[in-house]
Structure formats: C-alpha cells, structure tokens
C-alpha cells in the first residue's frame, strides 16, 4: 500500500489538505485532485441515477397508494441526487448532457446491484434497506470528511433524504417478517441474494487495495473494510432482530463482523443465487462487474429515452 511518488505540487496540496484546507474552486485544485474528485462524483452520480429505473420498475407495481407515494418520492430523491453530482461536475468542466445522455450502457460506473431487476415488493424494500444503507454509509463518510466545499454542502440534503429511504426499507422489512407466509419467504429470498451483493459493493479489501488518492486528498475518510463493517453493524442486527438469516455474524473476540462465506464468490444473475462453492479472485469480480448485469441496457435506455419519442431530443 505504498503510495506512488507524487509530484511536488500534489504533495503540497495534500499537506495543506491535511492541515484542514477546504477546496472551493478549480483554481485551488491540482490535476490529481481534480481527477480523483471527478471519478468519485461519477460513481456517486451514476449510482444515484441507475437506482432510479431499478426502483421505478418496482414502484409502478406498488401494492397500495401509500407505498406508491413513498417509492415515487424515493425515485425523485435519487434523481435529484444524481443531478446534484452531475451539476457539480459541470462546474468542474464536465459535460452533464453527455454524462447522462451520451454514454453507452457499459460506461456508467454504478455498482453491479443496480444492474439487477427488482421483481417484487420485497426486492424493492430490501433494496431500500440494504443498497440505500450502503449508499448512505459511503456518502455520510464523504459528507463528514470531504475537502471539497461544494460537495460537502450539497450532501446535507442528500444525507437527510437517504435516511428516509432506509426508514422506508427497514420498516417494510419488519412488516414482511411479521406477516409471515409468502411475504416473509420473499423477504428471506431477497436477503439471500442482496446481502452478499451489498458486501461486494464496498470493493476491494484494504489489504489488496491500490492507493487511490481519494483518502490522500481527503475525498473520503474511511477505508473499504471500515465502510463494510459500518454497513454490517447496522444490517446484521436488523436482520437478526426480525428473524431473517444472513451469512455474517459478530465476533466478540475481534470486535468485528465476520463474513460466513467465501468472499468474494460467483453469482448467477439469472437464478439470483450466490454460488458459495465457487470462490473468485477480485479480478474475476471486476470482470463480472464490467460485463454488467441483466438490466444494464434496459435501465440506461429508460433514462436516455431511446424507446420512445420523436420529439424528445
């Protein structure tokens, strides 16, 4: 994990950031800083953007009007958050139109989780509980630690709204668990595929992680493993509390959560099933991510509108 040698301008900026410097304009940035920031914002914007079609296709079949309102509000929030990320990028010189409408499906940088179809209400609400929890885990770390002023201010709104999504997801998970029968079975089936997928979301473990610059430039504060632990610390007790099984447990001795399956491992997206007997290397995981999941093209088409209108563009 030794950082590659940086040029003096980059090192000077890192030193000043460590002294508490907040960056406000492009003029304050080095090329390295700007590049790392743009990469982070792309992932952030793309993740929020791609959650919208995934959630919407589930939302349009919401069981009641109240739940329809709640998930419509969630889709609305996510698109607003995506717009915030891209607007900030536009002020850094990126082309927002191109980012949303000009890229090919595989060029988006969102997590593999948002390439999957959400096929029933249980999948919708567990996604709120798990995926949005992952999102807020990552973003609240950015919010607390980022050295980029405009992003820090913008994330106040984002953090607040994501909390609502979690509450929506978790309260529905409790209801489904309590309801028993088919609703509860669907909940467990969903947790079975979404739990490992969210663990994977946080990326390479720290002992394999190449230096990214995001920590050095204080664009985030916690490492991948720390973030994964934070997510499990919220999610594992939630599931245990409602009697839903998850392949992870708390280990008193090490005071940490332990994953109870070969991590990472292979996933069959058609059966929505993890193959615990087929462990993978992280390079193989990256290949799976790059090949994208079953809904990637459809979701991007929905956003870009290639299925409709003569008049739209």
């Amino acid at each position: 994990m030794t950082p590659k040698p940086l040029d003096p301008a980059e090192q000077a900026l890192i030193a000043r950031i460590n002294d508490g410097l907040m960056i406000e304009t492009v003029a304050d940035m080095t090329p390295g800083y700007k590049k790392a920031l743009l990469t982070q914002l792309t992932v952030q914007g793309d993740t929020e953007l791609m959650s919208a079609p995934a959630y919407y296709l589930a939302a349009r079949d919401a069981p009641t009007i109240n739940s329809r309102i709640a998930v419509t509000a969630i889709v609305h929030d996510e698109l607003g958050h995506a717009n915030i990320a891209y607007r900030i990028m536009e002020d850094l010189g990126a082309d927002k139109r191109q980012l949303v409408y000009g890229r090919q499906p595989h060029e988006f940088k969102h997590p593999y989780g948002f390439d999957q179809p959400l096929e029933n209400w249980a999948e919708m609400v567990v996604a709120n509980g798990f995926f949005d929890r992952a999102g807020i885990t990552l973003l609240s770390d950015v919010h607390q630690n980022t050295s980029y002023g405009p992003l820090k201010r913008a994330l106040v709104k984002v953090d607040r709204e994501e909390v609502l999504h979690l509450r929506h997801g978790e309260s529905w998970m409790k209801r489904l668990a309590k309801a028993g029968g088919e609703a509860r079975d669907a909940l467990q089936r969903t947790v079975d595929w979404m739990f490992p997928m969210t663990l994977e979301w946080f990326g390479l473990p720290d002992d394999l992680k190449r230096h990214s610059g995001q920590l050095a430039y204080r664009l985030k504060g916690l490492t991948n493993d720390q973030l994964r632990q934070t997510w499990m610390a919220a999610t594992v007790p939630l599931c245990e509390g409602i009697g839903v099984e998850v392949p992870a447990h708390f280990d008193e001795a090490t005071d940490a959560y332990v994953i109870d399956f070969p991590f990472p491992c292979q996933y069959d997206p058609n059966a929505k099933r993890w193959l615990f007997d087929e462990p993978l290397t992280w390079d193989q995981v990256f290949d799976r991510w790059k090949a994208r999941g079953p809904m990637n093209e459809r979701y991007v088409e929905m956003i870009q509108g290639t299925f409709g209108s003569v008049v739209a563009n």
Partner: protein
Amino acid sequence: MPTDRQVWDALGGVTDPEFPLSIVDLGMVYGVQVEATRTRVTMTFTSIGCPAIDMLVADVREAVGALPGVDEVDVEIVWDPPWTRDRISDRGRRVLAMYGVVG
C-alpha cells in the same frame, strides 16, 4: 381515560424521520381531544404527498394507543392552516440549531 397532557407527552415521543424532533416540537399536532376510551389527534404534514404520512400516523396510533384507557385512536389530517416553519417550538429550534439544520 388519559389526560390531555398524557396524550401530548405520548405524541412528544413520535419523531419525524427527517428531523431529529418530535411532531409536537415541529408544530405538526394541531389538537388533542379525549372522549372516554376514544382519543382524537388532529395534525398536519408539510406536503399532501408526504411519503412519511402512513408511517407517522401508525406511530401516533401506537404511541397514543399504548396509554391506559385508550381503545381507539382517531387521527384526523387537516391542511388548514398549512404547516410552516413558524410553528416549530423554541425547544425544537434549539435542537435543530444543534444539528446545524436551521441556518
């Protein structure tokens, strides 16, 4: 049969999912009426399409319904007068200021 005060105290335990504040401090509760075993709570929300309405109504029913002598909780949602931030209590303002929510 609970006193009005007990009902208000129970509502003071129902927090809004967006703000770290109770619906009472947020000024969303307009009135409480206790009639024998039936209690009526009149309240409002920030918008008609507020996604938290059913969650909060359920929380209100649970909190008030847990009081001794309450068999039935009626939650009436009204839109007049509309909610504004001016209805937030002084205590609420202090709490929000602590969280950096109020500028």
